[in-house]
C-alpha cells in the first residue's frame, strides 16, 4: 500500500506537470492571438506588391538605412489578385503599403475602401501585343499589324493573353477592345478571338515567360499580350531584338502606390512610397521592370529608343472602370466560361 501511494504521488506529479504544460500552452495561444493582431514591431514596414515587382537587396538596405525602418516584401499575384486579396483582408491588412494596383483596378480598390489617402502614380507603360520576329521569319509569314489581325485564320492558335479577372494587362486589353470596337462590337471580337484559339493565362509572367516563343520560356505562342517596352529586353547577340510590338490596340497603364487603410505602420508606409518615388528607385523601373518612371528627368536606357516605339493612339484609359468592370467581366466570362 505504501509503495503504491509513493507511485501515486509520482504520477500525480507527472499528471500535474502535464496538465500544467497543456494549460500553459492554451494560455499562450490565447495571449498570442489577442496580442498578435497588433504585434508587428513599429520599425517593421511591409510592402505588398504584384509578382513582377523587383527591388534589389541593395535598394532594400538603402531604404532601411535611410529611413530607420525594416522593410518586408510580400508578393500577392498579379494586380487583380493583389487588389482582391487586399479587399478580402481589409479589416486587418496584410501589409502597410501597396505598390502595383494600376488604373484598371484602382477604382475597385478605392470603392472598396482599402486605401488611406490617395494613389500615387509610380510608373507607366503601354500594354501592347508583342510578336516573335524569328518565328514569323521562319514560317515566311507576315506578322500581324493590328489587333484586328488576331482573329484571322492565318493567326489561329498563335496568341496568348492574360485573364482580365486576375491580370491588369488582361483587363487593359479588354478595355482597349471595348473602346476600339464599341459597345456593340467588342463581344463579337472576343468570340472570334476565342474561336481563333487564343490562350488565356492567369498572369503576365506565365504568358510571357512560359507560353511566348520569343522569350526565355521558348513557348509555342509567337504572339503575346505584353508591353510596348518588352522588346528592349529581348535583344540578342546580333544586336537585334527578337520581338517587336503591334502598335495598335494599346492601353496606357499607370501603376500606383498607396498607404493601406488600417495599416499598423502608416508612417513607415508613407516612407516606403516616398522611396519608390525618389530618383534612386525610379531609375530602376526601366531596367528591372521595363516600364517608364513617372519622375520626370529620370534617364531612359539607350536600348529603349532603339527597340521600343510609343503608340500614337491608345485605347481604353478614359473608360469608367468602376461603373463598367463588373458587367464587362461578366460578359467576358460568358464568352470564355
Amino acid at each position, binding site marked *: 500500500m505504501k509503495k*503504491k501511494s509513493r507511485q*501515486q504521488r509520482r*504520477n*500525480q506529479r*507527472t*499528471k500535474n506537470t502535464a496538465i500544467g504544460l*497543456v494549460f500553459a*500552452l492554451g494560455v499562450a*495561444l490565447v495571449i*498570442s*492571438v489577442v496580442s*498578435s*493582431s497588433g504585434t508587428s514591431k513599429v520599425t517593421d514596414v*511591409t510592402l*505588398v506588391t504584384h*509578382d*513582377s515587382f*523587383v527591388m534589389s537587396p541593395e535598394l532594400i538596405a538603402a531604404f532601411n538605412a535611410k529611413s530607420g525602418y525594416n522593410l*518586408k*516584401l*510580400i*508578393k*500577392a499575384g498579379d494586380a*487583380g*489578385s493583389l487588389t*482582391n*486579396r487586399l*479587399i*478580402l*483582408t*481589409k*479589416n*486587418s491588412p*496584410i*501589409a502597410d503599403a501597396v505598390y502595383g494596383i494600376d488604373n484598371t483596378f484602382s477604382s475597385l480598390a478605392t470603392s472598396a475602401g482599402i486605401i488611406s489617402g490617395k494613389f500615387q502614380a509610380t510608373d507607366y507603360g503601354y500594354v501592347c501585343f508583342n510578336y516573335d520576329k524569328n518565328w514569323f521569319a521562319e514560317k515566311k509569314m507576315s506578322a500581324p499589324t493590328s489587333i484586328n489581325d488576331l482573329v484571322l485564320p492565318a493567326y489561329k492558335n498563335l496568341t496568348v493573353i492574360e*485573364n482580365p*479577372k*486576375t491580370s491588369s494587362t488582361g483587363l487593359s486589353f479588354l478595355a482597349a477592345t471595348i473602346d476600339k470596337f464599341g459597345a456593340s462590337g467588342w463581344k463579337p471580337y472576343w468570340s472570334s478571338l476565342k474561336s481563333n484559339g487564343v*490562350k*488565356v*493565362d*492567369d498572369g503576365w*509572367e*506565365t504568358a*510571357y*515567360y*512560359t507560353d511566348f516563343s520569343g522569350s*526565355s*520560356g521558348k513557348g*509555342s505562342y509567337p504572339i503575346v499580350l505584353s508591353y510596348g517596352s518588352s522588346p528592349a529586353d529581348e535583344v540578342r547577340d546580333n544586336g537585334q531584338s527578337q520581338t517587336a510590338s503591334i502598335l495598335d490596340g494599346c492601353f496606357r497603364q499607370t501603376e500606383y502606390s498607396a498607404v493601406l487603410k488600417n495599416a499598423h505602420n502608416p508612417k513607415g508606409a508613407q516612407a516606403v512610397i516616398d522611396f519608390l518615388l525618389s530618383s534612386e528607385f525610379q531609375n530602376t523601373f526601366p531596367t528591372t521592370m521595363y516600364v517608364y518612371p513617372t519622375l520626370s528627368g529620370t534617364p531612359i536606357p539607350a536600348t529603349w529608343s532603339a527597340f521600343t516605339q510609343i503608340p500614337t493612339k491608345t485605347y481604353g484609359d478614359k473608360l469608367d472602370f468602376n461603373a463598367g468592370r463588373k458587367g464587362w*467581366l461578366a460578359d467576358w466570362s460568358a464568352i470564355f466560361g
Partner: protein
Amino acid sequence: MLTGLPFLANKPGVKALGLVPLAFFALLFYWPLAHVISLGLRGGWLGDLASKKSVDLAWFTAWQATLSMLIAVGISFPTAYLLYHRKFWGQGLLRTIVAIPFVLPSIVVAIGFFSLRKSANLDGLVGHSNLIFIIAANVFMNFGIAVRIIGSNWATLDSSLDDAASLDGAGPLRTFWSISLPQLLPAIAAASSLIFLYGATNFGIVLVLGGGQIKTIETEIYFSATQSLDLHRAASLVLIQSLLTIVSLSLTFKLSARNLHFFSHELPANKSALSRKDFSVQILSLPVIGLLIVAPLLGILLHAFRSDNGWTLRNFQHLIGFGARNVLSISVLDAAVNSCRNAVLVLLISLFVGLLICNVAIKFSPRSLSRRIFEALFQIPVGISTVVLGLGYLTTFGGGIFPLRSSWLVTPIAQSILAIPLVVRILLPALLAVGPDLIESAQTDRATPGDIWWLIQIPIVKSAIYLAAGYAVIISIGDFAAANFLSYGDQATLPNVLFQLISRPGAQNYGMAMAASALFVALTASVIFLTERREGSTL
C-alpha cells in the same frame, strides 16, 4: 456491467470537461461554418444553385470523382490480393511504395503529374490532357487506399476456401468472382465512398493541373472568393459542396461501421506463399504498381536533379533563395520552418483536444444518443471541405471581435480542426479496447481515475497516440487549401511556396519545385517504411 468507465459516470465533473472541446469547436469550426453558410443563404442562392453553371460544376465534380473512384478501385484487386492475401519476399517494400502517394501532400502529387505532362509534351491537347492528368493524379493518390482497405479485409478471409475451390477445378477468376468478391463487398463499398470523397475535394490537384480551364466546385469557390470577389456565389457553392461531401462521408462511416479497419490492426499470419497460379495476378498487379506509382515518384526524383543542361544539384541549392525574379516572399527553407512549426502546434493541439474528447466520450454509455451526438459533433469537420473552412475563417476572423486571421496561429488552428476528427477516430477505438477487467481490478486496488488514465490507459494506447500524432503532422504539412486562404507573406507554408513556384514561369522555379517535392517524397517514403517496420501497418 461496465460500460466505459461507469465509476465516473455519476460524476458530472468529467463530462463537464467535454465543454472544453465543445467550446473549441464552437468557436473555431461551427461559428465560421455558420457564418459562411449564412452568407450563402443571403442573396439569391437558390438562383445561383439552379444556374446551369452550378449544375455543370456539381456534375463535373461528381463525375470526375466517380471516374477516379471506379478506376482506382477497379485496378486495385490484383495488388490487394498480392500484398495482403499472399506472402512473399519484398512484400513490405511494395506495401510501403503503394502507401506513399496517399500520404504525400496533394500539391506534391500535382507537381509530379505537372512534370509528367510537361515531359509528355501534351500541352497541345490542353483540355483533354488536363482532364486525363487530373484523373491520373486522383487514381495515383487513392490506389493505395483501395489496396489497403480491400487488402486488409482480404487478409482476414480464409485462404483455404479458395484453395479448396481451385482444387475443385475453379479458375482464379472464378474463385475470385464467386468466393472472395462477395465477402469483400463491404470493404469495396467503404473504399469507394472514401475515394469518392477525396476525389470530390482534390483542390490542389485541380488548381495546378486544371490550368484554370477545368474547374470543380472547390476551385470555383476559391476563384469566386479570391478573383471575382463574389463571396455570395462562393458561399452558395459551399452549400452544394457540403451536401456532396457530407453524403459521401456518412456513406463511408455507415459502410465502414462493420469491422472495417482503416487505421491499424493485426493481420492474420496464415497466408500462403506465392505460387505459380498467382502468375496471372502478378502480371495484372506489378505493371500497375510500376506505371501508376513508381514511375511518377521516380519522375519527381529524377526531375529534381535535372536542368536544361543535364544533371545538377543546383535545384537544391536554389531552395535557400527566392526563385527566379524573386517570385517568392520567403525562401523555401523558411517556408519549411513555418510548416514544421505549424505541424508541431497542430500535433499538440489536436492530441490535447482529441484525448479530451475521447476521455469524455468513453464516459457516456456506448449506445446512448448523447454519446453519438457528442462524437458526431467532432466528426462533422471531415465532411466539410478544407476550402470551405478556409473561406469561413477568412470571412469570419478577418476583423471584428476575434481577429484571428491576422495572427500566424490561424493556419495551425484551422489545420487542427482538420486533424482532430482523425485523431479521435484513431484514439477512441484504442481506448475502448482497454479491457474493463483491467480497470475494474485497478479500481479494487483503489486507483484513482487519474491513475487509471495515466498508468493503464495511456500506456496501452501509446502506439495509437503515435499513429494519431503522425497523422496530425501529415495533415498539417500537407494542407494546401486552408493555408492558401490564410497564410500570407512570411507565414507562407511549404505547399504555398510550392504552388507559387509551379504556377510561375521559369526553369529555375520549376527546378526548385521539383527539388522540394523530391525531398517530400524521400521523407514520406522513409517515415512510412519505418512505421511499417514498427507497427506492421500504415494506414
